[in-house]
Structures are given as structure tokens and as C-alpha cells.
């Protein structure tokens, strides 16, 4: 998955487990950038009576680097607090929840937003209510309207939302984690001699009826950029974005209080910039270490980008389908195309009319050239589909990052750095068989863009 349960330790800590990061110029407010960090993966919508909520003991942050050194120049931090109206009922709600201050809503969550810049931290939002989870027609009868009340305007024209959303990331987990099977091409898989598949099949979206928790900001672009010229070709137009979750160093079960006790400074336990970076590129034994480090340490992991394990597996699992990729891997050629896409950004003169280069510092950040206007006719394949406003120029909620990264690893982006390389025909065709239409509820046209969460009643 993008980053759901991607590392051994964080997979045991869902409230701190980042799943996806999005960064894009807001299509309906193009003078702003929308940043979204998702947490708490694979939520079954009916998961009551203690429906999902952010961790009161977790420090969530969205970081922005605007000068290319892999360090944050600007950070938005989020802390949550759960409040019970009545601790003497087992119920999440005791009647329909018709407003965010409904007396029927027992377990509510509130949060603060703190902006840190130039060594100073300022609280720019306090006591902001989250929406409830989407339970069903009796408990949350007007959910979309109710959730919209949880879009808050705070300082400097910033909008913020924190709460449950429908999962917008689509992926065929069931097949991909079955030894990199891709249903549309499964008859070509070596199948370990078992001859299980004899014809192609459609992809299955494993996340189609699941929810996540989103932290979303819509920020005036001018607040995010360093001084300078801000045209499409100007380095000062590019930002790098990532999210982190941190916990205090000590947790002790306090059996007098019947709850965890936390102490000590916060330490990072989860990180996410580009989709699938930790999930697919970083080996199992290093994933939790990677999660604990800042992007400036990513040069330590650059070899896994230059020589991705999956590039070697594809020719082995799909015999005779990727002969050119196989030669490339056997030659030990470092993948400068992937290093550019994921670690430095793409310099000018590689893709006509496009750059999101942040300099030589290798750091996994989602890089967005904020000067590139939103597409009127978006292509979910982003830059490799000819749409410069999509991934890897930031990431929109509907971008098909699984297909994009599969094709890139399969070699379709090698000619960006080596004109003599001819990608295999399959490299430009492979997919897990899903598109944005595989997301049943679709997306919203406006903030927070991710769809209304599935209700427990309709998705038991």
C-alpha cells in the first residue's frame, strides 16, 4: 500500500501510522495549496462502539521544506484531546448527532494547530472540533453536512479539517502481496509452476469500502514559499512536503488509573513523503529505522532507490516480459530516473516545461511546483501521462500512484536520463487494473477533497 502498515513496528500502532500524503494546488482556490496527511489505515466503517479517533498521545505534524535542504522551514503540528460527555454510558452517541455540539454525542475529539517557523511556535487554532465517524442513518443522518461544519477557517486564510474520510487510495492489495501478482497480467506470472491463472482478470480495490482519518490544510501559497521569483521555472516555487507522527519516549501502563502514562520528549515513529517509498523500496529490517529519521538522512538509503528490489523481481516473476529491464538490472545500472523522481526532484530540461528540483540534497519529500496551475483535464497518471499538475509533481487525491510507480520501476522513466534505453512494451502497460473510478464514493470537488466516509450501517 502507499504506506499503510508498511513497517513492522508501526503496523502495531495504527493511530500513529501515516498512510498517504497529498500536496496539490487547490483546483477551486488556485492561490492556495492543499496538504493532506492520512492516518489510521484500513478502518472498517462499522468498528464501534469505540469508533476511530486520532491519538490523544500522538504529535502529528506536516512539514514543509521551501529551500531544498531536506529540513523543514515550516511545520504545522496537531494535538488532539478526547472528551466524554458521560463516562457512565457505553455508547458513542445516545441519539442522532445533528451538530458538532450535539448533546447526543458522547465521545468527541478536539484539536489544536500550531505553526512553527523561524524558531517560533504560534498556536493558530484551538479547541477545534472533529466530526464524528460516519455511523449510520440513525446516528449521523446528515453526515456530509455535519462533516462540512468541521471545516474551520483559522489564521491567515487557512482552512483546516481533521476527521474521518473515505479512503481515496486505490490498490489491489490481495494480488500485489500475493507475490507481486497483477491480475490483468496474471497469466504471464511464473506462478511457481502451479498454473493457477490462465487468463487476465480485473483488478480488485482492496480499500474500496474502508475509511481513514485525514488531517487537511488549505494554505495560501505565499505562506509556504521562500522569497524569490515564483514562476514555473523558478526553484523558489517548489516545496517539499512530508508528515510525521511522534510519541513520547516512555509509556507505562498505570494500573491505578487504568490507562497509559506518557513521559519524556516526543520522538518520531512514522514518516511519509512519496507514496510507497518506505513500503516498496526500503527493506524490512530498516523500515522502522527509516520511519524514525528525518529526510536529510535519506542519502543512507539512496542505494535502495538506485537499485530497487522490485526491478529485479519483475523479470523473474514475469519471464520474457521485461527483457530490457532485466539487462538493465543485470548491468547494475543505477536508476538515476528514480533518484530524481523520489530524492531530488526532476531538474529542468528533462520533461518539457517542468521542474520540481530542490537541489542535490537527497531526501524523500513530496515535491510540488506550486506555480504549475491545476489541470482542466487531469490525467491520473500525472507527469508520465502528460499532466504536469499530477504526481510526482505533488500528489492529487485521485492520482494513480500505484500504476505510475510500477511503470517507473519497470523502466518507463529510464529514457528521461538515458535516451538510448528502450523500455519494454510491458513497462508502459502494467497496472494493478484499477483507476480512480475504482473508488466507489469518488472524491469531492472542494476541500477536503477526499470523499464522505463510508457509514458503518451501509458498509458493515
Amino acid at each position, binding site marked *: 500500500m502507499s504506506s499503510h502498515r508498511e513497517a513492522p513496528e508501526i503496523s502495531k500502532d495504527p493511530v500513529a501510522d501515516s498512510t498517504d500524503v497529498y500536496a496539490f494546488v487547490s483546483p477551486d482556490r488556485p492561490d492556495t495549496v492543499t496538504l493532506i496527511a492520512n492516518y489510521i489505515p484500513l478502518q472498517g466503517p462499522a468498528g464501534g462502539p469505540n469508533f476511530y479517533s486520532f491519538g490523544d498521545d500522538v504529535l502529528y505534524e506536516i512539514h514543509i521544506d521551501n529551500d531544498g535542504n531536506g529540513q523543514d522551514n515550516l*511545520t504545522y503540528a496537531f494535538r488532539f484531546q478526547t472528551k466524554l460527555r458521560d463516562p457512565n454510558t457505553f455508547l458513542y452517541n445516545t441519539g442522532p448527532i445533528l451538530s458538532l455540539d450535539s448533546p447526543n454525542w458522547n465521545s468527541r475529539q478536539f484539536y489544536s494547530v500550531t505553526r512553527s517557523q523561524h524558531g517560533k511556535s504560534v498556536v493558530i487554532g484551538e479547541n477545534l472540533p472533529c466530526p464524528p465517524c460516519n455511523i449510520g442513518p440513525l446516528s449521523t443522518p446528515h453526515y456530509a453536512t455535519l462533516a462540512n461544519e468541521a471545516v474551520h477557517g483559522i489564521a491567515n486564510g487557512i482552512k483546516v479539517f481533521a476527521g474521518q474520510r473515505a479512503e481515496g487510495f486505490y490498490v489491489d492489495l490481495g494480488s500485489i502481496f500475493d507475490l507481486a501478482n497483477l491480475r490483468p497480467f496474471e497469466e504471464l506470472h511464473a506462478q511457481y509452476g502451479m498454473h493457477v491463472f490462465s487468463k487476465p482478470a480485473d483488478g480488485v480495490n482492496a480499500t474500496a469500502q474502508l475509511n481513514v482519518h485525514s488531517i487537511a490544510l488549505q494554505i495560501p501559497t505565499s505562506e509556504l514559499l521562500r522569497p524569490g521569483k515564483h514562476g514555473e521555472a523558478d526553484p523558489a516555487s517548489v516545496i517539499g512536503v512530508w508528515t510525521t507522527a511522534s510519541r513520547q519516549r516512555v509509556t*507505562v501502563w498505570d494500573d491505578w488509573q487504568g490507562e497509559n502514562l506518557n513521559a519524556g520528549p516526543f520522538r518520531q515513529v512514522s514518516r511519509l513523503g512519496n507514496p510507497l517509498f518506505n513500503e516498496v523500496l526500503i527493506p524490512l529490517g530498516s523500515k522502522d529505522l527509516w520511519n524514525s*529519521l528525518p529526510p536529510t538522512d535519506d542519502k543512507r538509503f539512496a542505494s535502495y532507490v538506485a537499485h530497487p528490489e522490485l526491478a529485479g523481481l519483475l523479470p523473474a516473476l514475469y519471464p520474457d516480459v521485461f527483457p530490457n529491464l532485466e539487462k538493465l538490472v543485470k548491468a547494475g545500472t543505477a536508476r538515476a530516473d528514480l533518484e530524481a523522481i523520489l530524492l531530488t526532484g526532476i531538474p529542468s530540461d528533462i520533461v518539457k516545461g517542468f521542474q520540481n528540483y530542490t537541489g542535490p540534497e537527497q531526501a524523500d519529500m513530496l515535491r510540488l511546483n506550486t506555480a504549475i496551475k491545476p489541470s482542466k483535464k487531469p490525467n491520473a497518471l500525472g507527469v508520465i501521462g502528460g499532466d504536469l499538475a499530477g504526481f510526482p509533481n505533488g500528489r492529487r487525491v485521485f492520482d494513480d500512484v500505484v500504476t505510475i510507480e510500477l511503470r517507473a520501476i519497470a523502466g518507463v522513466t529510464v529514457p528521461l536520463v538515458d535516451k538510448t534505453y528502450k523500455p519494454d512494451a510491458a513497462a508502459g502497460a502494467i497496472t494493478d487494473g484499477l483507476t480512480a473510478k475504482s473508488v466507489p464514493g469518488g472524491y469531492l470537488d472542494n476541500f477536503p477533497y477526499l470523499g464522505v466516509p463510508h457509514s458503518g450501517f451501509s458498509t458493515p
Partner: protein
Amino acid sequence: MSAQSHPEPTEGPSRRTMLRGAGAVGAVGIAAAVGVGAAGGAAAAATRPAADDRAAAGAEHSAVAAGAPLVVYLRDAASGELDVFSGTSHTVIRDPALVARLTHAVR
């Protein structure tokens, strides 16, 4: 401020080992609502904030005074050093005598 800007010292215990250590009854980790007095007298020799946590160290005494729990973690008895956590601070105390008493107490 960002937790990102205070990287974990490589020699220090990770969060995961802390969780395991704190959760294991046999480990020499103690939690006390007000326990710093006993340690403080014997530990007058050397008390220093961990290098990465100096910014937060000033908050410790106020956090303890406000009734916040204080957690002491002994990772390596041979070092004679104790990690003391309270509020959002982390202080390293070097006190071989206290370490000896603690290890003796849990035998």
C-alpha cells in the same frame, strides 16, 4: 517545535526498547508521582540534560511540581547513568550509588 529537529541520540534507548523496558516488571524502571527527592539527594554529583533534550529540561521540575509522573529508566547498570523522564523532558543522571541500590532492590 518540531520533534524532527531533535533527533534521537544514537546511544540512547529507542522508543521501542523503552516501551519494552518499561513494560517489563523485571527491568529497573520506576515510575513515581513524586520520587525525585530521594534520587536527587544521592545524585547531587552529576545531573545533566541529555544533549538532545536541553531545550525541554527546564520543564521537568515544573512538570513534577505540578504532579506529573516521573519515570526513571536504567538501561545499563554498569554505566551508572539513569534516564529521567518527566513532562516532555529527559535528563541523564549519573549516580552509581543509586544505581547500585536500585539493582540490589530488585534482586
